[in-house]
């Protein structure tokens, strides 16, 4: 900067003028800042929240946030256009779901971020969740790890079939949606993850808030889904529980092939 300003000719009055000029601009700057700050203090809502100090967990979460999330969600989780949405109000439930299942940090921009090996431990995910929760509030998960035991399997089955099976399929194996989007399999999902998914509606999933499905309804559904996974197939190998598609494949690959060989064996060949 200084090199750009024209070099003053040697002489005392010019020197004094420069000091005054600098003092002036500093004063103007100070006045402008005070003015802007004053307006902000009047216009900005709340103000108390920002001032409250973060809990230690949120503090740790902020450190992680500044490392991995900030580039797409912005310095204050306000979102960056074309990269990532605002996280204000998503709540710790959404953060824990996205981070615990490895969906966030996302590998790339695509139709849908898929489950992958998580970058952070569950504890770190909860720290991140705490940070976002304290920053903007939003839905939170109930205490504890085991929701399935609080639910009624049969009632959960009814709710699952009506609310979930049209995308996740009768088996929980998932299904296709339009244009490369999909409902993922529920096989690796934990109780907390299923609850969080219903509560926050990640990716293309609709939100099932507490008005649609009460917390008890959610526990019931989780009980049914977890039971579905451990439930042995009484009829033998389940063929992936895909329904009639694999059954049709099996009758040709096993039944027809075996019997064509049998007829080759029992009858003349040429």
């Amino acid at each position: 900067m200084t090199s750009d300003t024209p070099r003053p000719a040697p002489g005392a009055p010019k020197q004094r003028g420069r000091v005054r000029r600098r003092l002036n601009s500093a004063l103007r700057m100070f006045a402008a800042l005070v003015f802007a700050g004053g307006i902000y203090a009047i216009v900005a809502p709340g103000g108390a929240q920002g001032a409250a100090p973060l809990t230690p967990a949120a503090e740790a979460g902020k450190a992680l946030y500044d490392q991995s999330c900030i580039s797409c969600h912005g310095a204050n989780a306000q979102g960056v256009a074309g990269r990532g949405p605002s996280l204000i109000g998503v709540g710790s439930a959404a953060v824990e779901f996205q981070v615990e299942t490895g969906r966030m940090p996302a590998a790339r921009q695509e139709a849908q971020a898929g489950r992958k090996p998580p970058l952070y431990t569950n504890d770190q995910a909860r720290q991140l969740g705490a940070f976002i929760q304290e920053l903007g509030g939003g839905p939170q998960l109930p205490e504890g790890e085991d929701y399935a035991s609080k639910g009624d399997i049969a009632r959960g089955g009814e709710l699952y079939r009506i609310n979930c099976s049209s995308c996740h399929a009768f088996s929980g194996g998932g299904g296709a949606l339009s244009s490369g989007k999909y409902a993922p399999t529920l096989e690796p999902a934990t109780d907390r993850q299923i609850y969080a998914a219903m509560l926050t509606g990640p990716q293309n999933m609709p939100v099932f808030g507490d008005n649609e499905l009460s917390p008890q309804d959610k526990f019931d559904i989780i009980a049914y889904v977890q039971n579905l996974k451990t439930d042995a197939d009484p009829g033998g190998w389940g063929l992936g529980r895909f329904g009639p598609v694999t059954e049709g494949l099996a009758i040709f690959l096993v039944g027809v092939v075996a019997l064509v060989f049998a007829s080759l064996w029992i009858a003349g060949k040429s």
Partner: protein
Amino acid sequence: MKRRKLDFKALPGKAAQEVDTRLPVATPLRSMLNKVFPDHWSFLLGEIALFSFIILLLTGTFLALFFEPSMQEVHYNGSYLPLQGVQMSRAYETALDLSFDVRGGLIMRQMHHWSALLFMAAIVVHMFRIFMTGAFRKPRELNWIIGLSMFWLGFTEGFAGYSLPDDALSGTGLRIASAIMLSIPVIGSWVTTSLFGGEFPGEIILSRLYILHVFLLPLILLGLVTVHLALVFIQKHTQWPGPGRTEKNVVGERFVPRYTIKQAGFFMLVFAVIALMGGLFQINPIWLFGPYEAAVVSAGSQPDWYVMFLDGSTRLMPAWDIRVFGYNIPPLFWPTVVLPGILTILPMAYPWIERRWKKDYASHNLLQRPRDVPDRTGLAAMAFAFYMVLTISGGNDIVADKFHISLNAMTWAGRVGLLVLPPLAYYFARRLMLGLQQHDREVLAHGVETGIIKRLPDGRFVEVHQPLVEPDAHGHTDLPYVGWTVPKKMNRLGALGPAVRGFFRPIEQPAPPAQQPEKREEITTGPH
């Protein structure tokens, strides 16, 4: 007391004598039991369908003892815990009881379902065999039509059975069926309301489907199977051309005992495969689908494989509303009513179409190899490609999901594939058949390729051919093609030692090596 000596060896003959003096059956039976059937593996594909049908009747009878097609609302109280207390129809409850509380019920249900799939699969494979070998030609057009009718009857029978358990999958299928019926112009709503007794689902449909499934359709099928087999008896089975085989005779095995014993063995094998599949592979887990409710439509709801092609045609059909005389014809009408109509009438008329096309009005008892009629084999490949594209499209959401393809891309691939692949299949199959024909003629003219390359004194390389008969002055043999396998390998000519017979392991000992003379004169290069 003098003991009467019982001659066991004379017993069957005596018993037969006793029967024959009362019922004169010996003369008609003799000609029947001595009936000769040609023997070839491809003639047994229809038998797979016949035997699965028998197994369907047996297992179906067992299921009927426990199943109740009632739509009365009940609360489940059986041993499958995840459905405890759930409201469902009596039909679904009895289907669940069959699966969990009736001893042996689940394997019976699964065997019934697997044999239904096998029945339809065998019908389709058998139909391809009949088509590609020209077995439908005069005088057997009627049997071809009966066979096609049995495919559609089996299709309906299978769909009725699929709808009976009243689980969510059954109900979804029925809902689609009612929509298809509704799409028929003019009569659609009348047909639907009279079948369902009002609005879908009503309370009567299961009882009606039940009578259809356990009585009416099996009876018609049984009648058609009888006529189908009787016609094979009367018109005689077709046979492949070959030494000693003409249009007027049948070379093969007698009905009794050899053919019957073989078929009994084959029945056991079919039964074994179905029992194995019923015991090892789970099919249609109705307890996972839950009871039918109109709001429940699971992802991955598909019909059984033989209906899947119509599901596929529905998925591929663009949503075109066509107005005729001011009335709207729903797009569903074209892929689910018009298409099956064409797919019924066209194959039924094919024997007559081919007669005019090929100008062949004669009767035929000898089969044609697929390569000998490239046009027809091309058509078969074309039909196969068409059917495959539709069937895969019927499950395109599963394919899209499991192979991470966009569902929209699958639909468009199906639309393009349906128009592009069948002509390509026709072209390639036809060229392949012409190539095979040409190679047959080549062997007949020049002999079998030996794989021995000879260098001539002038430096040329030629392959040594083994002529099938003594060649003429130019090294050519003038053998006619008789419509049967031409030997392509040296050991087919017996040149590489006798081939040992047997399928999995030799059933005869190889010939002992020729005795070497005790002493041989040593051949040397001579004294140095």
